Each structure stands twice: as C-alpha cells, then as structure tokens.
C-alpha cells in the first residue's frame, strides 16, 4: 500500500512537471524517458522474466511507428486506430520472432534477433515505395479528442503529447505488472529458471515463450505509435540496432527480472548523455563500458543488488 502511494505521488509529480518548469527541455527529456520506460518494460517481459534474449526491441518500435505512418498515408486513419493496430501488428511480428526461440537458446537466439532487427531496418531503408525510404513518412498529430460528439481537448505539441504518453506509460506499466504477477507471468519465470522442470509439471513452455514475445513486441509497438504521432515524421534511423542495444543496456544495468529495476536503468541512461555535454556523441561508448561493468560486477543489476543487500541485512538482523 505504501509502495502504491509513493508511485501515485510520483505519477502526479510527473504530470505536474509542465506547469513547474520553464521551457521545453526537461519536458521533452521526460517524454523520451517515458517512451523508453515502455520499451524497456516490454523487453523485460521476454528477457527478464521469460529468459529469452532479444536485440529486436528497436525493430518492433519501428514497426509500430511505421504502422502509424503507412496507415495514415494509405488509409487516412488516426491515432486511435493506429494504437491498437500497431500493437496487434507488432505482436504478430513478435510471434514470428518467437518461433525460432522455440528451438534456439542463449547466444544463438540473440543472433537471430539481431538478424531480425537488421532485416527490419534494411526493409525500412530499401523498400522505398512502401516505407518512404530515408525520407521517412509524415504522421499527423493525434489532434482533437472527442467523446460522444463532445470535443474534449486537442493533443498537439509537446505538453499534450507528454500527458498522453505519461498516461499510456502508466497504463502499460500497470498491465505489465499484472501480467508478471499473473499465472502467465509465473510460467514465464518457470520457463526461464528450468524449462525441463516446467514441462515436467505440465506447463506449456512453447505457449509461455510465444506469449512473452508477443507481449514484449506489443509494448514496443505502442511506444512506436505514440512516438510517431508526437514527432510528426518518422525515419528508419530512429529504429536501428543502437536503439535495441540502448534498451538492453537500460534493462541490464537497472536489473533484468526485477520489475522496477529497468525503469531505474532508463532514468540513468537517459540522464547520462545530458550530463556528458560535448561528450554525448560518444554515449554508446559509455553505455558499452557501463554494460560491461554491470555484467562483470553486478549481473543482477542495480535493483537486484539492492534487493540482495537488503536480504543480507535482514538475515543478519
């Protein structure tokens, strides 16, 4: 209860930020952070909880964004259609990527996900008639929101998008937490810990892995649609393997398999480049060093380490 209360206060504080600060810098930084929270929480479902490594979260992010771009170009639909459509389409692509995961483990699966990520990126660049190639695609703002014919508000510009993305993040994080605590989430952990044992007690490991891949991809899809409508223009270079690597680094440094750890990792790795100043262009170098240090010194991540320290303290007390 105490934890829930502090989370509610945190969300209210985040919602109040646009009123409290001058200029757009902090709000746009927080918006980016929220999008990464969705992406990383999604990846944590399949990698942290189900134990299946994936370097393809950036590709799913792109598939979500391009679902919005292509649908608005060809079908003239809006955000409220794109959001579910983007989640469904990326979910299906996640299912596709989950199929090799049924036969491959560890490094071999990671390589397949890198290949998938690369194929998607090359598709976005090369298939110009469908994706617009390097020129990208325009995406309309979310625009007017009305309910039963009554106009409520207009979502355009930084502030409104920030509140929209904050709402979406809260909803998705709550869904993720419920998923993890559900029967399905427990089965993911079982498959991660010991697949042989999981099947010996009657759990369908195939179903567990595929659902984890689908859920994880659908999260990235939602992030993609949200970001596309905010930015107004999407281009392939926003969906490279570097995005995927950043998401993996955030998850691992924060603590994969713990629920709030990866969110901590997001905060850390989005703030770090801002503090580096002119060095920010070398941020992937810093992320890489941090990742190696994290894996070598505390593979359980920040959250896992905190939990461990707390457990030893309790054991001593």
């Amino acid at each position, binding site marked *: 209860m105490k934890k829930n209360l502090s989370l509610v206060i945190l969300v209210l504080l985040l919602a109040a930020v646009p009123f409290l600060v001058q200029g757009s810098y902090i709000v746009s930084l927080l918006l980016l952070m929220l999008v990464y929270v969705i992406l990383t929480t999604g990846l944590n479902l399949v990698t942290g909880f189900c134990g299946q490594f994936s370097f393809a979260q950036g590709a799913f992010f792109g598939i979500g964004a391009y679902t919005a771009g292509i649908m608005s170009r060809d079908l003239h639909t809006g955000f409220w259609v794109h959001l579910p459509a983007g989640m469904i389409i990326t979910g299906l692509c996640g299912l596709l990527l989950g199929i090799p995961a049924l036969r491959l483990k560890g490094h071999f699966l990671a390589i397949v996900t890198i290949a998938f990520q690369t194929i998607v990126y090359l598709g976005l660049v090369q298939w110009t008639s469908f994706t617009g190639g390097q020129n990208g695609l325009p995406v309309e703002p979310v625009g007017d929101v009305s309910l039963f014919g009554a106009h409520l508000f207009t979502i355009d510009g930084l502030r409104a998008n920030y509140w929209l993305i904050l709402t979406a993040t809260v909803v998705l994080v709550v*869904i993720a937490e*419920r*998923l993890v*605590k*559900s*029967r*399905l989430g*427990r*089965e993911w*952990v*079982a498959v991660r*810990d*010991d697949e*042989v*044992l*999981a*099947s*010996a*007690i*009657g*759990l*369908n*490991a195939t179903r567990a892995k595929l659902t984890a891949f689908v859920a994880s991809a659908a999260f990235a899809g939602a992030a993609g649609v949200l970001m596309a409508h905010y930015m107004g223009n999407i281009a392939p270079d926003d969906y490279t393997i570097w995005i995927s690597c950043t998401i993996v680094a955030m998850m691992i440094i924060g603590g994969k*398999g713990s629920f709030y750890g990866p969110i901590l990792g997001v905060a850390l790795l989005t703030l770090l480049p801002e503090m580096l100043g002119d060095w920010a262009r070398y941020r992937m170098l810093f992320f890489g060093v941090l990742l190696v240090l994290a894996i070598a010194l505390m593979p359980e991540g920040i959250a896992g380490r905190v939990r461990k320290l707390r457990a030893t303290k309790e054991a001593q007390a």
Partner: protein
Amino acid sequence: MSTAPILEARGIHRRFGGVVAVKDVSLSVGVGEIVGLIGPNGSGKSTMVNLITGELEANGGSFLFGGQDVTALPPYKRARLGMARSFQMIRLFGSLSVEDNLLLAHHIRMQSSTLDTILGRAQAVQEEDAVRAKARELLQWFEMEQFAKRPATDLSIGQQRMVELARGLISMPKLFLLDEPAAGLSPPNVDRLVGIIRRMRDEFGMSILLVEHDMRVVRELCDQVVVLDSGVMIAQGHPEAVVNDPVVVEAYIGSGWKRRAKA
C-alpha cells in the same frame, strides 16, 4: 490384477548414438501399486523414467497411460494427464519461493484464465487464495510450513527433496515417478521418506514407480521390483525373490564373488 494398470510400457527401445540405453523393456504399474525400478549404475533406470515422462523420445515401443496411448505426447501433456515426477538431481525453480514452486505445479488444475487474473476477477483471486491455502496445508503435512516464503534453493538437500515430493503431490497425480528420492538423505530422513511414500499410496491412492539404490527402501515399500542391467530387463517380481536371484546378484557385484568364495 482385476483393474487395468495405470502405466504400461511395451517393448521400449532407446539408443544414444551407438549405445543402446534401453532395450525392449516392458513393464507395468498397477493402480495403487509401488513398483521398484532397480539396477546398477548406468543400467538405464533414469533413461526409462525420462522415456515414461516424455522428456526423451523412445526409438521403439509404446506407452499406455490410464489406457490411453501417450507415446507421441510431449512431457507437459503427459503431466496434465496425471503424471508427476521427482528428479535424481533435485530440480526446483530457484528464484521462486517454496510456495510458488508448489503453486506452479497446480497451474494445470486451475480453472481461471490468465485474463481473469490480470483483470483481478473475484473468481480468479479466490482460486489463487484456495491454491495457496492448499500449498500451506501440504507444507504442514511435510512439517515445512515455516519455509513457505523462502527461496527454494535456500533449503537443505533433505528439505528440497520434500519440496519436490510436495510439488508432485499438489497436482494429485495418478502416477508419481520418484527418481532416487533417498539419494543424499541422512538415515532418519530416509525413514521419514519411506513413511511419506507409503502414506502417498495409502491415503491418496497414488501409483508409484520408484527408482532407488537403497535396497532397504525398496524392500520396505515395493510390491513388485523390475531389475535393469545394461538396458535389459533381467528380473521382475517380489522384492525378496528378486534380490536373491543369482542373475541380479551377478549384475550388481559380478560373477567373481563365487569363485573367490570357493577359494
């Protein structure tokens, strides 16, 4: 026997490359029966257990479980039909609590769907509470209720074995396959184990296939014993008769003992 056996293995074959691990083995476990599966190291006992549960596929032969042909079914489907097992090397979900380990084994008997649990429907919450209560009750039965919230791998080997048994029991299987449950246990714990296995049969009517090296356990519990040597069944019958069978004695300690005994 009047009723059909719960498990029937017919002419089971299994090769690993050029090595024949199990060769034309047929055995059956009757309802409410405790059948021992013994033999020297490397005789194919654990392979046989893995074949029965479906973790390994047989190269030949067929399995009937409760009268149904399960030869082509994957392990999780066989488990859902009512097969549970323990492992020679203890296997538990290490990052989960003892209680959650038991809970997972009961998933196959739960009615509410994942969506119900995500939405927090009353029926799903009630079912989950009921299963947790059941897990507690079972842990009490094993005198281990104080460990419910502890990570499973924090426990001693003997306690972990008991958790494995409780995990098998919670789904109320028709057949429980125990792969060397007494291995690594201290003598008092072995006595406890014998009592528990007997109660599993007497109170819950379970049929049990017991792989065991400890002959005392086998003699005390088994109605029938099957002996494997190099993947071949060399004897079958009442435990006392089997352990005195010269073929079995030879398989265990070789033929040299007779000559040495004469000299």
